[in-house]
């Protein structure tokens, strides 16, 4: 783990995988991502995005809730990465998190994978 930051009730862990055929930055979100943590989430994703990773993976299997403010932070990262030629991938959203991605059709513009290894191999 590169570093770990806690914004109650959201926890984000960032790991940079520099070796391997496809280097990537992994952001693991756990808990609940809502408006109270969305600015911190945005700042975290922005600072990782600034490092211009070819691939930024957000792992969501431990994320129990995400509101539209948190989704916004993720979308901004997607747009910023796209401008620099990088890409964003989401992994394992479930229940209400998957529902929000599906309803807003964000899952049509940001690819969603079942596992980190699948996301990293594409």
């Amino acid at each position: 783990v590169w570093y770990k930051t806690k914004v109650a009730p959201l926890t984000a862990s960032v790991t940079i995988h520099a070796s391997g055929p496809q280097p990537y930055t992994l952001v693991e979100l756990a808990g609940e991502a809502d408006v109270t943590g969305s600015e911190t989430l945005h700042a975290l994703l922005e600072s990782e995005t600034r490092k211009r990773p070819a691939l930024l993976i957000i792992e969501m299997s431990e994320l129990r809730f995400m509101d539209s403010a948190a989704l916004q932070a993720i979308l901004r990262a997607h747009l910023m990465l796209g401008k620099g030629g990088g890409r964003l991938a989401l992994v394992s959203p479930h229940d209400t998190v998957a529902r929000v991605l599906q309803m807003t059709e964000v899952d049509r513009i940001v690819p969603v994978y079942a596992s980190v290894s699948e996301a990293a191999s594409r």
Partner: protein
Amino acid sequence: LPTWLEVTGEVAEPESSGLWHAALFHRDTAEFETQACLFAEDAVRAGAAVLIIGPASGRDRLRRGLGGLNDHVTWADVPETGANPGRLISAISRFAREHPGRATWCVQHIAWPSRPAEEMWEVLRHEALLNMALAGAPVRMLCPYDIHLPQELISCAEATHPVICPHGRFQPSPRYDDDFLRLVPAECDRPLTSPPTGARVLTYADDLSAIRHLVSLQASAAGLSPSRAGDLLIAVGELVANTLAHAGGPGTLTMWTTDAEIICQVSDPGHITDPLAGRLRPGPAADHGGRGLWLVHQLCDLVQVRTSKGGTTVRVHMRLAESG
């Protein structure tokens, strides 16, 4: 029977490119079906994309009347209960966008006598907002209203449709006022009924996680299915998040259950100044927000908003039985 092609006057010229929005006052189902079929026929002749929104129960009869026109019609079923009219503007806009270069002609059957009054007033608010949201769009809307509806609803339908068809002839509606500031009739904004005694009342500041947890508990205690409980959780989560983002003060959540519904109401000092808030779908890549209320409308069976400088109350309803 006349068709819109025979209509004279600026509101209904076939060449006019903007929104044409008519209330069809019909005495019985047969009259509605006849007019709907003529409308669809004219639509197909004009090369328009045809959308028929209505309860599935009336679909088979209408299908028979349409005959060969069926191939040109897209159907959008609305359940007879729990069909939130707050979703329709984004649904119609989407349909229109999916048919670029063509006009959209839509039969919008969303008013019927057995529909509860609180739903009917939201139907009429939607009709009013549609004039604003789709102004200038190449869209024609035919909205059947049964003349046996209460008079105040009929009057309101006249006030929210630029064109009316009371006796088989389309004509400009004398009651329609195209000033957008007065567009939503005051009757649609009557105060909400008081929550029952025994409703749970909770005040929150920034402890949104705890509030969402309580909504989950109430939803499962009420017997809401897990997926709909999840939808209610998302919706209330957006409403309480709006309090934090926009209201600049604490909010109150009130929850109660009736025989048919679980109801959650969020009140805060905020003021929603855009009457179309939540009615138009933000594109998936839009990074300016505006998704919260839109999601609430998509997920809940009925959404009632009362907002002023003094504060905002949003009441959302989820039917306990799965709706059609």
